[in-house]
């Protein structure tokens, strides 16, 4: 077999080609963004199609996994005194609002026991409770032209959602977690919680909601750095 130099050379080329694909992660890594940009529009359409408007099945309270819920924060832990807390709702709405915690507590309360899935790969079953985001938005008289929701947080975290996901019956402005008031590390006094979005869409320490007719330059804190915008589950 050694008498066949062509064959040996070709094997060498195949081997070096194969290993440089692995090592060439370095070379290919430059294309990550382009690959995402080329394929996400189609993926997001399929995700949106899959994502029905109806509620999803929930877990039992006994299945809650408090220890599995890790804490991520992009900019420290803001402290929002409950007495002075106000949730601003504005944008394409007839009645811009400044709601205090009593106003949120006066709305119908809902508990959702759902899986919280982090983009990093871990997940935890959590019982969130509070008013539905849809009910809060309805208070403000949303314009039919509203299509996106911008969510501002006290730590400058920023998110935008498609309105259909924001209006999903299990998308809450949670004020309680696992039956107790929301801990500060988990977003007290008010955070977003939803079974249909990855964790980074679920802003903590929410202070502002703005109904928008189109998306602006900023898509979100992580999205602007390259993470997927729709991020549906």
């Amino acid at each position, binding site marked *: 077999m050694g008498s066949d130099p062509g064959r040996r050379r070709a094997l060498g080329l195949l081997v070096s080609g194969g290993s440089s694909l*692995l090592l060439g992660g370095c070379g290919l890594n430059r294309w990550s963004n382009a*690959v995402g940009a080329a394929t*996400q529009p189609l993926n997001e359409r399929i995700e949106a199609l899959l994502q029905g408007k109806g509620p*999803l099945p929930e877990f039992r309270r006994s299945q809650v996994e408090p220890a599995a819920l890790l804490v991520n924060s992009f900019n420290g832990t803001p402290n929002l005194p409950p007495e002075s807390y106000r949730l601003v709702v504005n944008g394409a709405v007839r009645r811009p609002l400044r709601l205090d915690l009593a106003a949120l507590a006066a709305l119908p309360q809902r508990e959702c026991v759902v899986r919280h*899935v982090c983009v990093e*790969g*871990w997940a935890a079953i959590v019982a969130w409770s509070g008013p539905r985001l849809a009910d809060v938005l309805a208070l403000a008289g949303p314009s039919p032209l509203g299509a996106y929701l911008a969510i501002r947080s006290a730590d400058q975290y920023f998110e935008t959602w498609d309105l259909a996901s924001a209006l999903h019956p299990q998308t809450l402005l949670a004020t309680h977690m696992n039956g107790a008031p929301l801990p500060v590390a988990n977003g007290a006094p008010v955070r977003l919680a939803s079974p249909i979005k990855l964790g980074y869409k679920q802003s903590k320490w929410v202070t502002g909601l703005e109904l928008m007719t189109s998306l602006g330059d900023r898509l979100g804190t992580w999205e602007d750095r390259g993470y997927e915008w729709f991020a549906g589950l």
Partner: protein
Amino acid sequence: MGGNRKGLTGHCGEFCRWIVWQRVQGQLGRLTAFPWRQPVITLSDASGSARPGAHPLWTRAFHGFNLLVLLLMAGSGLEIYNANPVFGGRAGATVPEWLTLGGWLAGGRDWHFGVMGLYAANLGLWIGLLLQRRHRRLADGGDLGTLRRSASPPRRRLASHRITYTLMLVVLAFSLITGLAMYKPAQLWWLVSLFAFAEPAGHSSWQTLRVCHLATIPAIALLLVAHVGLSWRVGGLRLLRRMAL
């Protein structure tokens, strides 16, 4: 073509020239038996195909493309793994960077979900076509019987080879199913709930899914070693080369 071939330079050109040359040799090899070639016994001989050893172009195309997208999926998957290791979480050990693809978590996800459509389409079409047109080449109960009863080494090798590559297709389909369950765990909750079997032992269905999905990498790697080794035993370099596009 001949004129172009002379113009090719560098490794790439050499490689192309080599392929063309090998193609010509392959044709000759089939017509005039070269003494240094061992006779090729392939599975299609065993199943009585009209043209011994002929793999249709389509199966070779699916075969090659599958390997390419599989490497991309595995590399980007390991990048995702490193964001939060399946074993040990944030304190867990990460895989070496040279095995990963994407550069960072978002990049790994770009590749993983960018290529998953191609991976799934290629695998689905390939399995579909194999079942329809070449199902006699896939393993069946008879192969297990051969392994249990036959004493003839070539027959045993053929049977284990059919079982090996058929299992590979099963493992790849399994990675697709477990991947889908973690890509859309809310909408495909019924798929996730199939992995609740370890809950009595204290393992959440999510962790079970992660372990199952990750396990496809060592599983396919082991099967791949067996597959290439068996191909070599069954048909030598000539068979390996013929499978390469």
